[in-house]
């Protein structure tokens, strides 16, 4: 073969060195860039965690709930369940791809349907997880320095503020609304308890102690002595917080809540759009679009995206719940 012929072959077009279709390749490159986005978020989470390495919330003290099991301490079982749901829907997806290779329309339909159901269960579970996290559990006191003081009894079990705070019947402070005060100023909801109510409750209940965020050598949060507990709350306490949002977080550093909402939210958004794309593909399968096209490669491409969502969750699960 002369060089001219070889060059014609190389530059004449139609070469496929990666032996992969354009669509699949581009999906792979999109996945790489999306993976880097997620890595950026998780690395930023790592940065903040290393910055507050001695006071970061302990995940299995934060996520302890399981639906329909109230008051049962079930750390991580729910996320483990969510992980399993997502892996399961990944399996039905790859089975759909496999059925597509065999041009088996009815099987692809069933497996796509199951994948969509799995995705919906996952998004629903995440909504429940968010709801529990936002509503909060025991309540805590935020100090002037922005630290969180939680309450425990003598045995170290958590105590909810609502169980010991003394409600003051004659609260003179009500929520300011623009209709009954300055019309150009607004105020958010007032905390359920004022500092005075919490302090009175703490004074009245001799066995309630304060637990700070500082992690001691045993890897547990430090519990203060009775005298020091009273001192901390009275001297530094500023605000009663219950639950978590982007400003305050009863479980510890507000950054923990910020990253939790942002990263699981961004992932949840991926799952949600994945479900939408799966639904579109599902209807195309049902209508026989790919049967006529003679190839189920579209199923393969959304499959890649769907597995990627699962892949990201595996990492989110590790870095938010396990490590």
């Amino acid at each position, binding site marked *: 073969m002369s060089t001219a012929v070889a060059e014609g072959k190389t530059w004449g077009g139609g070469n496929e*060195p*990666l*032996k*992969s279709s354009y669509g699949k*390749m581009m999906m*792979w*490159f999109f*996945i*790489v860039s999306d*993976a*880097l986005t997620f*890595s*950026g978020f998780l*690395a*930023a989470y*790592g*940065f*903040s*965690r*290393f*910055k*507050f*390495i*001695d006071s970061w919330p302990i995940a*299995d003290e934060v996520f302890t709930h399981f639906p329909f099991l109230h008051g049962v301490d079930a*750390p*991580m*079982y729910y996320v*483990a369940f969510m992980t*399993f749901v997502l*892996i*399961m829907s*990944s*399996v039905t*997806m*790859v*089975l759909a*791809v*496999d059925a597509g*290779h065999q041009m088996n329309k009815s099987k692809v339909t069933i497996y796509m349907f199951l994948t969509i159901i799995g995705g919906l269960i996952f998004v629903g579970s995440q909504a429940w997880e968010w709801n529990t996290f936002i509503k909060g559990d025991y309540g805590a006191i935020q*100090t*002037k*320095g*922005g630290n969180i003081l939680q309450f425990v009894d003598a045995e170290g079990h958590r105590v909810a503020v609502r169980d010991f705070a003394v409600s003051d019947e004659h609260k003179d402070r009500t929520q300011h609304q623009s209709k009954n005060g300055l019309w150009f100023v607004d105020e958010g909801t007032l905390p359920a308890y004022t500092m005075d109510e919490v302090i009175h409750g703490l004074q009245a209940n001799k066995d309630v102690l304060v637990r700070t965020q500082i992690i001691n050598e045993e*890897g547990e949060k430090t519990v203060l002595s009775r005298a020091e507990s009273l001192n901390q709350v009275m001297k530094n306490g500023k605000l009663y917080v219950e639950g978590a949002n982007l400003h305050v977080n009863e479980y510890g550093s507000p950054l923990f809540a910020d990253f939790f909402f942002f990263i699981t939210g961004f992932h949840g958004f991926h799952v949600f759009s994945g479900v939408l794309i799966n639904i579109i593909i599902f209807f195309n399968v049902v209508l026989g679009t790919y049967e006529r096209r003679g190839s189920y*490669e579209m199923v*393969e491409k959304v*499959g*890649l995206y769907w*597995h*990627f969502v*699962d*892949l990201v969750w*595996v*990492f989110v*699960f*590790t870095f938010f*719940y*396990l*490590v």
Partner: protein
Amino acid sequence: MAHEHKLEIFRGLVKFKSNTQKIWGVLVFLTIVTVIEVALGIVKPESMMAKFLGMKILNWVFIILTIVKAYYITWDFMHMRDETKALQRMVVWTAIFLVLYLLFILLQEGGYVFDVYDNGYIKKDF
């Protein structure tokens, strides 16, 4: 091309008869790994609390198990095993290089900021 699958995992230790069978096999493996992770996370064995390279051994175990899971999801569910070497490397090496680079910078800096507060040069709690 697309219909041929490599059916061995664990470097040929386990070979499946069909692609469907391989999928279920990988699912079983991933489930076992997840169960181990959750069990370790709940039990938190005392022996794994020692520090290694600035992190608890337990955390290293979690990270390694996660990467193992990621490998099997990519290689078998996403069929990376059946792609050409060039495509595999394009995707994996790019991501791994950039992620390691970013992690190094951010974690190093996070640790440094912690030290600055910890040594009392700057006060963060008033």
